[in-house]
């Protein structure tokens, strides 16, 4: 229990630091970003938006930094992240609310698929090390070295352009109205296959190699030999004595790889014009939509924290030693 309390405190402090940083960053921008934005927009900007920008950059005269900070927190708790500039006058929170499910759905499913598949394949070839199964290794190494955007582009070129199997971009057929009906859902699935596939293909080799190497290490542990000597079924030895232990570092690397997953997501959504949060962030950057950028960063940071937290809990659940010593 102490372990969970300590980790909990750690995450609360980290979240606080992330939010605070998010508050200060725009305030540290040199010059007068609001004026330059107003000039850039050619005067087509409403007083509401100007006000929202001023609040964001701390140019809201008359408030002390502390007052600004507390009111920032207050707004956060009310889910108020200001107004988006690029999608004016939609609030940033609605823009994010609309895009986040796409990312979480697609990338989440693809990543989980990749982890499960990769870990399973890694378990099998690690267990049968030194056999023909090792032929997977050079292939996996090659795939893990190819940058993601290449995969994306090649996949589009091959499967959307050369052979017109899948749509090359967007999250669903343009013109459809999002609703819980088969027409829309099937269109979403259809559009999701190619991006999901590229994510799986580009990330799976990392999981295969990591698990395979751990399996080789763990297989020489005494407790695995003991399990063999006890006459347990080979499957049982492989799963609950070797893989069960070899999977622990996979969970740690999952936590470490999260940043990478987010980065990959941004690229994927740009390549496929996928309506997720990465694409929104991309649009925010091109439009100098600072409130939206700030909101996206905040959400992404918090998402990484939550995922880390889950990885931590799973790890603690699987490794009794952490629970005690942690």
């Amino acid at each position: 229990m102490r372990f969970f309390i300590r980790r909990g405190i750690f995450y609360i402090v980290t979240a606080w630091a992330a939010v605070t940083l998010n508050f200060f960053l725009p305030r540290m921008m040199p010059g007068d970003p609001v004026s330059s934005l107003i000039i850039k927009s050619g005067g087509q900007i409403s007083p509401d938006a100007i006000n929202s920008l001023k609040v964001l950059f701390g140019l809201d005269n008359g408030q002390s930094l502390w007052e600004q900070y507390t009111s920032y927190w207050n707004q956060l708790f009310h889910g108020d992240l200001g107004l988006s500039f690029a999608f004016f006058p939609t609030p940033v929170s609605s823009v994010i609310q609309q895009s986040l499910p796409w990312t979480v759905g697609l990338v989440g499913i693809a990543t989980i698929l990749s982890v499960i598949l990769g870990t399973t394949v890694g378990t099998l070839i690690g267990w049968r090390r030194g056999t023909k199964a090792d032929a997977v290794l050079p292939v996996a190494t090659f795939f893990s070295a190819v940058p993601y955007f290449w995969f994306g582009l090649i996949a589009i070129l091959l499967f959307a352009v050369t052979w017109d199997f899948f749509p090359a971009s967007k999250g669903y057929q343009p013109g459809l109205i999002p609703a819980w009906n088969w027409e829309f859902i099937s269109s979403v699935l259809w559009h999701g296959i190619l991006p999901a596939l590229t994510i799986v293909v580009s990330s799976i080799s990392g999981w295969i190699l990591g698990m395979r190497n751990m399996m080789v290490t763990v297989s020489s542990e005494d407790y695995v030999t003991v399990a063999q000597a006890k006459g347990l079924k080979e499957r049982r030895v492989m799963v609950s004595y070797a893989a069960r232990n070899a999977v622990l570092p996979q969970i740690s690397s999952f936590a470490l790889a999260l940043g990478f997953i987010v980065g990959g997501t941004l690229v994927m959504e740009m390549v496929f014009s996928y309506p997720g949060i990465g694409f929104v962030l991309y649009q925010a950057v091109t439009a100098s939509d600072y409130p939206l950028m700030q909101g996206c960063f905040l959400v992404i940071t918090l998402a990484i924290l939550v995922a880390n937290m889950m990885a931590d809990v799973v790890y603690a659940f699987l490794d009794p030693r952490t629970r005690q010593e942690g």
Partner: protein
Amino acid sequence: MTTTAPALTNATLQAADPILEIKNLSVDYGFGDDPTHVLQDVSLTLNRGEVLGLAGESGCGKSTLAYGATRLLPPPGVIRGGEVIFTGRDGVKTDILTLNDKDLRTARWRDFAIVFQGAMNSLNPVHRVGTQLIDAIKAHGKTATKQEARDRAAYVLEMVGINADRLKAYPHQLSGGMRQRVMIAMALVLEPELLIMDEPTTALDVVMQRQILEEITDLRDRLGFSVIFITHDVSLLVEVADRIAIMYAGEIVEAADAKDAYLRPRHPYTRGLLNSFPPLRGPRRELQGIPGSPPDMAKLPSGCRFADRCPFVMDRCRTEDPALSRTALKMSEPERLVACHLHDGKASEVPAELAIQAPQK
């Protein structure tokens, strides 16, 4: 058995009721063109109910012999030849080396269980002690219900002096001595006929060593299993073993009754080994140790493998490999085999310390 029998070429003594006969076992390390021949034609017999001590310096192949005989060699270990005949209580003989996977799995732990050298790491850190005990029971379908398996696990744990509530403990919550006991309990959970213990007390302090040794002896008296007890510390063997086999550089160099070997060693290596450990009981001897170190198994010298370190080395020793056979000493020693040219009857005289006379009965 007559005392005038010629030197045995088949290096085992005729055993009355063998439980395990290792015959000409050869083991290599390495799959390639140039593997290291760690064991070459090693033979050893364990009698039913006996505690056989296997001693020798680290790296001389004791573990390899045990793992080879039970087909648990880690890669790149390969069995190159030999037979390992296990004779069950029912008298049925099986060659462990030729069993198919399924029969081997069935025989494991039920017929022969092992307490491993790295007993500290023999327990999987992520499973409860109880789970790991019950695993073995369930794998052999000995008990029908969960409760019976649990009871059995609790029973063996109590048997080695650990409270049954420790079934719920994780290995890291136990001390080294406790973990070792858990491993002994685990080995006995199916009441095997043969127990192989590879340096079961090496990582423990002297007090704990004592306790565990006493426990093993005790359990053996109660349950009547046969034991191969491996150690690099010969003085321990005198405490527990009925018979001792001494290994050097992958070969058995002396096999004898435990007391005989201890009080009247015949092989120079046995004598050197005895002089390198303080006896657990009795007056302290001056410790000498053996100068030098065992040869590299990949580059074995021709002739006697001990020649470089032997104080009695003769010219012949450098070229001729001594066979494991009876001694040519005048006293009758039917239970003893030695691999040393000093004892083949052709040596001009046997050094006095290697020819100590047994007291007349």
